[in-house]
């Protein structure tokens, strides 16, 4: 039976069973309150963002897009799940992908509990987006060729398996990846969406404050500063001293570095009283005293209200 998307949505929302149906367009089940969908469903596109779904029926068929963003209760997906694109943004209960998943575009942005890859699957030709999947520790060996691979914020990732290739870019911002496998030679690199050179991405120790300050592109400059580390950058860049005082860790300095076509970089350089390590913590550029900056970091807009008994 062929059903128009509106009719199908109405019946499913009313809890009616449909038998085997083909929905010809985009089935809109956003914010659907049910825990599962009826069996026998075949649709071109399914949008169930924000739904209370816990899983999906084993026989669900999707031709184009499957959107399950913000399905916070979604725990599992059926084996063999196939769709042109699958979007699972912020499905925070999801820990694993199903066996033999098959798609061109997979978006797992913000799936912070996701960690288990299936033994086999097909994710190819399009984009694999794993932004801020903080629990991902590896990529599976069966992914071959993608257009885009976004790993930004995957803090647990240290390497990309050889065999994986991208026709366009890979974003490694904030990951522990320190080189690309041979299969990825020539790929464009990005650091949290900013196109960067291999040197910025993989050899930050070679960067100098001088070349960083000379970089005309403000976005690339920010990444260079991040890669150098604020502390080393502020030490090498000849920062201007705005204020200094003492806290329980020792001497504390508020430093300012002027940047081309960007707001000045202002930060508090201080020593941690517990570990003895030195830090540079960036604060808003309007700060004028060390105390004001420390108060801002503690969440006080009015520095006079910030009177800590002890800073640890």
């Amino acid at each position, binding site marked *: 039976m062929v059903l128009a998307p509106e009719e199908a949505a109405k019946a499913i929302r009313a809890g009616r069973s449909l038998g085997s149906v083909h929905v010809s367009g985009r089935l809109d089940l956003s914010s659907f309150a049910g825990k599962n969908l009826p069996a026998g469903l075949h649709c071109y596109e399914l949008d169930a963002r924000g739904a209370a779904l816990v899983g999906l029926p084993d026989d669900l068929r999707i031709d184009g897009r499957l959107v399950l963003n913000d399905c916070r209760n979604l725990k599992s997906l059926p084996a063999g799940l196939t769709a*042109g*694109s699958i979007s699972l943004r912020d499905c925070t209960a999801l820990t694993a992908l199903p066996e033999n998943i098959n798609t061109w575009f997979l978006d797992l942005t913000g799936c912070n509990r996701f960690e288990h890859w299936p033994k086999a699957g097909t994710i190819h030709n399009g984009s694999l987006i794993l932004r801020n999947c903080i629990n991902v520790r590896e990529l599976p060996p069966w992914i071959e060729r993608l257009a885009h691979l976004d790993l930004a914020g995957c803090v647990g990732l240290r390497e990309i398996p050889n065999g994986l290739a991208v026709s*366009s870019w890979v974003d490694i911002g904030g990951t522990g990846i320190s080189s690309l496998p041979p299969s990825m030679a020539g790929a464009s690199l990005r650091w949290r969406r900013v196109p960067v050179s291999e040197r910025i991405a993989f050899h930050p120790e070679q960067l100098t404050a001088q070349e960083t300050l000379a970089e005309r592109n403000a976005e690339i400059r920010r990444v260079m500063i991040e890669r150098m580390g604020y502390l080393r950058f502020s030490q090498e860049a000849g920062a201007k001293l705005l204020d200094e005082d003492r806290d329980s860790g020792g001497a504390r300095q508020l430093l300012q570095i002027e940047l081309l076509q960007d707001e000045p970089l202002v930060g508090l350089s201080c020593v941690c009283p517990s570990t003895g390590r030195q830090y540079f913590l960036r604060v808003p550029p309007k700060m004028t005293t060390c105390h004001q900056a420390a108060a801002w970091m503690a969440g006080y807009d009015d520095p006079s209200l910030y009177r800590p008994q002890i800073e640890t």
Partner: protein
Amino acid sequence: MKRELIYMDAKSSKFWNIDQVGNSYTVKYGRIGTEGQSLTKSFPSEEAATKDAVLLIKEKLGKGYVDAAASGASAGSAATAPDGLIPLIAFSSINHREEIGQNVGTFIGKRVTDYDPEKPVKTDVVYRFRSDWETNEVIPSLEKYLTTNEALTTTAIVFGAWHGDAWHGDDPEQTAEVVVDALVKGKDRLPQLAALYIGDITSEENEMSWIKQCDLSPLFKAFPKLQLLRARGGDGLQLTVPQHANLRALALETGGMDVGIIRSICTSDFPNLEYLELWLGTEEYGAGYTVADLQPLLSGKLFPKLKYLGLRTCQLADELAGVLVNSPLLQRIETLDLSLGVLTDEGARALLLLPLNTTLKKLNLHYNYISADMIRQLKALPLTVDASKPSNMDEEDESRFVAVGE
């Protein structure tokens, strides 16, 4: 050596033939349907003549000329072949950005002229019907034309602005439905209709994003011999029943394509489609698609006869290029057109990975933001590459725009 080439765009339809015998060659060129001019040049040796002829041919191919035989067209006659099939090259209209701002001078290779009921009807032109300042009729004289004998053999019609009273401020919301309704009503008087352009409207008349379109699919049902449907304007555009057994070409020019249209195309039944040209446009003009929405098309499972794929004016051209080079569809089409969009070195770098030794012959990247060095690399590919830029293109500006959009 003998080679017959033709060229067609929104302004012209031309032929260029070369015949080399021994140490000289003769070039014959002119407008299709005319005798044209000829020119003979002699060289000291046969080798020198061959060398010069090969160079000339390469130059013509680079400008967009194609082999007449392969395109199904012949230089001497008008655009339609004896079997009534419109040659593939005649489906394309706007090749370069400059042409967007002008009304079409030709359509399916024939000269376009406004219909004037006072003059005798001609059969070697394509008539255009449109509102103007003088008339209050929405589509002046169409009814009159439909009563003529010539209507019965008409193969192509162009519709310009359909505002009628709107020109006097009465009904700015007038949609293309008046055109579709009039055509459907008159379908028995147009039994040979093979090509339609609905919206030959320049930005001076009405911005592309303001043109009010409608559901065009009733035309599919009304005209079983339709081979080409071209339409301009994305607002209100729909294809609710995208089915046609014989349609060979679909061209939708929008400022920003609604994702619903992409969905209709991806669920369509056009088994004979050879030519698909989509002006995807920008978010500012109503485009809501992502590259993932094009996956069913790029998967290669649709349109088994497709030869030309145009994904033009695309704001996401770079991202799209990265996916296109992995698409099975690229293994079996002849022309990929990513022109008029925001294509930079990032997308160009991906295009260097295009599958070669396939059917792919041509890459149209006209109007782009690609650096000179990268253009050199693209031109080294064994493909005919058009990476030209309009002379007034602003590449210094940090904001990058598609060719239709401000």
